[in-house]
């Protein structure tokens, strides 16, 4: 593999950069520039912003998100296994059983620790 093969891509990057630059500069020079309050708002034609963007979120949501990921991953693993189950045979069944067992242990733990209680 020689570096020359990438020459078109390199030319493309350079042209794109220059073009973007030229467009911005030309519209800056020749275009009219009359800012108003409404134009500067985050959404020019949308709702009026209420309060700051960084709002306080209950930390519980993070816990929910983490718990969700575990079961999300479980489903992601289950689906291809279910499709290929006949080919994998008993070996696949055992491996999946071990995986599920580990997940169940984790599930019991989070249940007992009260991670599933909202209050």
């Amino acid at each position, binding site marked *: *593999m020689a570096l020359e093969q990438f020459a078109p891509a390199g030319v493309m990057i350079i042209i794109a950069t220059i073009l973007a630059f030229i467009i911005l500069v030309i519209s800056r020079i020749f275009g009219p520039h009359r800012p108003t309050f409404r134009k500067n708002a985050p959404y020019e034609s949308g709702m009026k912003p209420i309060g700051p963007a960084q709002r306080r979120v209950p930390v519980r949501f993070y816990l929910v998100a983490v718990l969700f990921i575990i079961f999300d991953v479980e489903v992601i693993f289950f689906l291809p296994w279910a499709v290929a189950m006949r080919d994998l045979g008993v070996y696949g069944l055992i491996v999946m059983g071990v995986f599920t*067992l*580990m997940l169940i242990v*984790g599930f019991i*733990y989070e249940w*007992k*620790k009260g991670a599933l209680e909202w209050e």
Partner: protein
Amino acid sequence: MGEFNVWTSLPAVAPEIGLTILAAVVLLLDAYLPKEKNRARNIAFVSAVSMAVLALTPFIWAPAPNTSELFWGGMVRHDALGQLFDVMILLAGAITVMIAVDDSGVGRRGEFHLIVIIVTLGGCILSSSADLVMIFVALETVSIPLYVLAAFRREDNKSSESGLKYFLFGSFASAILLYGFSFLYGLTGSTQLTAIAAGLNSEIVSGNLVAVLAALLMVIVGFGFKISAVPFHFWTPDVYEGAPTPVTAFVSVASKAGSFAVFMRFLIEAFGLPAVSADATSTLVVIDGQTIQTFWVNLLTVFSILSMTVGNVLALRQKNFKRLLAYSSIAQAGYTLMGLAALQAQSAIGQDIAMASITFYMFMYTFTNLVIFAGIILFVEATGRENIADFAGLQRRSPWLALAMTIGLLSLAGIPPAAGFFGKLFLFQAAVEANLVGLAMIGVLNAIVALYYYLIIIKIMYVDQGIDEDKPLAMPRSYAWVLGITSVVIIILGVIPTPIFDLAQQGAAAVRLAMGS
């Protein structure tokens, strides 16, 4: 690619299987044990004893140790070197759990012991992985729980800070490492280390020397972070000082030993020892007429010199004991890097000594560091202070504690009869065998510098007058056992190092033969 047979593959990961079951058991114990005073202590005891027992599995249920074979379809390589690293990481986990028991803030929460088990599991896989994917998964299995552990004392700002710093530096290093791996895969079309070595010799790669060297450089940077080699050491002092002391102890031994093991495997298996033929002359892997070996050996030599010098010189001025040990651990990484650089040795025996000396050094370093950290935990728990000057008059307050710490410090300094002497001797010997006499000389000079700050601590403990000298320190029984056993192990390794070293040398020879040289 090794063929995939589950039943023959199972014994190769016996400790890992045991640790997985142990993790599940500890998780359930933590969920179901009734809330009482000795709850966390019981969990800790179960974890520690189980890990110590699992350290025996490599001698009971394992493939033959005098060969180096691939298992799990080429993911895991099993040999005596991997066994030794497994044993030291498992014992490090057991000892960490034991010395954490009375540390307020960490030892009294069941999760702590669970996370230590997970790190141990990762370390065991790490030391025997033979595939880039496996290396990365294992490395993250070690790192991510360690980030959590470093920030384990949520109410302590310093602990949170160290956890965040460790996480930011660590994830950045992992990203660089992974980027290097992706280049290697792109160049050679394989993630298996020995297949990469074969791929590097193919026609496609020749002409792409720069890409190979860039990939190698990125991987070395990633591993350099994990073993805290200069210039990737900036996280070490802050994390060591801020993290709860048992965690510091564990970071300094388990993560380091595992990383050195895999770093060594990576360099040997993918970037090749020079093939050693029967008459001990060698042919080098050649791309573009240059040798890749020269590149990484020179790089590691420079890192080794920098780590030793920077670590030792900065350690001279430290007031905080944990910070001093951080710089000392940077210097120790420098000595061990000498062993990695010595992998370029031309003779078979030289390469074996290089591999075995790294293994032996990490083996003795595990016990040495843990005995000192156990002493610090005991002292800090009783007095709440961790400056070196506060250890004044320790000998009058607790003679046994002072003795155990003295043994540990002598071992770090490399003075017989402690194990550190032979650790350094083997490394210097490996460097000389590999014609790196200059590097060995710098190592010796650095050892002399290091002697100063280790001996100063011993002097403070035995000679200086302390303010609280009339208050004796109580020694809980669990700590007495840990300190006693580790001290005795250090002395035994220092008096008869040959069994471990010979075993490591056998493993090294097996690895060398498996590489087809």
